[in-house]
């Protein structure tokens, strides 16, 4: 077994060797610009790009013509939100989203708020689920967009896309989903789920970084966007800039591989996730699952280890690459805004660890991870004044803490 063990697949994934192989000829041999219409170098890669477009489209039940290539999901989210806001501003300036969306959705919404738009953040329950009734009731005459993610990157909770799509379609509101964590992991069909705009990125599915796409529905209804970048008018004017041909080829190959094993891989990952959770639960008290117990990404396990701080825990398992919602690990020194929105107390947010499993995760690695975690948590609890107090029967909420 090779150390360190990578368990941060919700952050990024290694590029699959088959993807690298598919990309290679487009760096040196077929290096043309897909927009060069007047010679063979251009024609050749244009055809390759169109094939990739078809392949990526079909993976989500869309037509190739509905795929707009971007630099990644952050750009796709920005284009979807800012593009719709600009184009449909005469219809209205109201957007609905949730407080646990990725910052690539929340931040453009907040930027719009500064420009006179109104944003409704739906409530989420303790598992990170929205209330469909509240969504329906929040839609107004002037609502132009609902943006709700497929699966949450921190806590793994899945949104009921089909049910959301039913509501938005019946109300005539555009539905955008940030499916960065969903595409390639869970079945997504834009027609069946009545999705109008969908963001995705290659590097979460064993493709290269720096390439992604926005699906933009072309009919029933046709969705229009104002561009956020200006230039050569590529991608039907929605996204100017020379196409990242190698990236696009890699993206298509990566998605094709993920889709070919989507259900067997999901089953395998759920098995690993359960195994890790059960082994930890058997040995440790005061551990809490963050996110929905079953309606969650197959590869995500987010746990709070009560009375142990997340950064010190990660320090104790230095041969495991995991991430934490602890403030100490963030630039802002605030604990995870996602966990806060769920009503997880700040103390438990500081104690959270996210395990992200993936294609190359083996069962031995899960067992090793469980063993390491158990030792580290027990050691830190020996050192934890909070654990000691709880064990002595002290109710921590009654203690008068000296905050600093």
């Amino acid at each position: 077994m090779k150390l360190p063990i990578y368990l941060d697949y919700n952050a990024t994934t290694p590029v699959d060797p088959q993807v690298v192989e598919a990309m290679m000829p487009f760096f040196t041999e077929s290096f043309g610009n897909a927009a060069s219409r007047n010679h063979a170098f251009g024609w050749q890669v244009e055809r390759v790009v169109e094939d990739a477009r078809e392949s990526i489209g079909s993976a989500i039940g869309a037509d190739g013509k509905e795929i707009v290539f971007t630099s990644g999901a952050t750009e796709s989210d920005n284009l979807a939100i800012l593009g719709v806001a600009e184009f449909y501003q005469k219809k209205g300036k109201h957007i609905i989203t949730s407080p646990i969306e990725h910052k690539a959705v929340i931040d453009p919404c907040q930027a719009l708020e500064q420009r006179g738009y109104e944003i409704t953040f739906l409530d989420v329950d303790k598992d990170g689920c929205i209330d469909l009734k509240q969504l329906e009731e929040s839609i107004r005459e002037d609502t132009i967009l609902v943006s709700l993610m497929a699966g949450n990157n921190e806590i793994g909770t899945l949104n009921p896309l089909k049910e959301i799509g039913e509501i938005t379609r019946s109300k005539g509101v555009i539905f955008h989903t940030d499916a960065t964590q969903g595409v390639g992991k869970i079945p997504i069909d834009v027609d069946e789920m009545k999705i109008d705009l969908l963001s995705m990125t290659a590097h979460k599915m064993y493709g290269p970084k720096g390439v992604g796409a926005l699906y933009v529905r072309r009919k029933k209804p046709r969705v229009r966007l104002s561009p956020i970048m200006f230039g050569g008018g590529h991608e039907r004017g929605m996204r100017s800039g020379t196409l990242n041909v190698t990236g696009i080829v890699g993206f298509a190959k990566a998605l094709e591989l993920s889709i070919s094993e989507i259900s067997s891989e999901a089953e395998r990952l759920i098995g690993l996730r359960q195994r890790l959770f059960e082994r930890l639960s058997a040995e440790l008290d005061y551990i809490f699952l963050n996110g929905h117990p079953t309606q969650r990404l197959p590869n995500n396990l987010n746990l709070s280890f009560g009375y142990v701080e997340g950064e010190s825990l990660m320090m104790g398992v230095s041969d495991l690459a995991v991430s934490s919602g602890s403030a100490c690990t963030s630039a802002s020194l605030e604990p995870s805004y996602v966990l806060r929105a769920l009503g997880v107390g700040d103390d438990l947010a500081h104690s959270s660890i996210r395990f992200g499993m993936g294609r190359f995760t083996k069962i031995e690695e899960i067992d090793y991870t469980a063993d390491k975690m158990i030792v580290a948590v027990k050691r830190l609890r020996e050192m934890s004044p909070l654990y000691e107090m709880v064990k002595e029967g002290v109710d921590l909420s009654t203690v008068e803490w000296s905050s600093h």
Partner: protein
Amino acid sequence: MAYSEKVIDHYSEPRNVGSLDKSDNSVGTGLVGAPECGDVMKLQIQVDPETKEIVDAKFKTFGCGSAIASSSLATEWVKGKNIDEAMSIQNTEIVEELSLPPVKIHCSVLAEDAIKAAITDYKSRNQD
């Protein structure tokens, strides 16, 4: 974040982890920080009633590696000092010794507060 060697050393082999009997009048207990802030330190000292020398010190800390290291170092430093000397330990000395980066300075402040709280507690129990 990269940790200094001294932080790693104190984190991996913390000195003086444990608890003293807080009902004993020769023991002073300081509990500082708050769980929602991500750091809580409990630092205890045992004082010789005659010489006012700190003869033993123990800590328990909930917090990041730098918080654990700061409190571990604090227990090392207070031992053998009398309570007035210990009262004058500054957080900046802890920062320097452990090479703490700016974002971790609050850990050293908390350790200084913990020392002072423990001494204050001892004094309040032993007012003549």
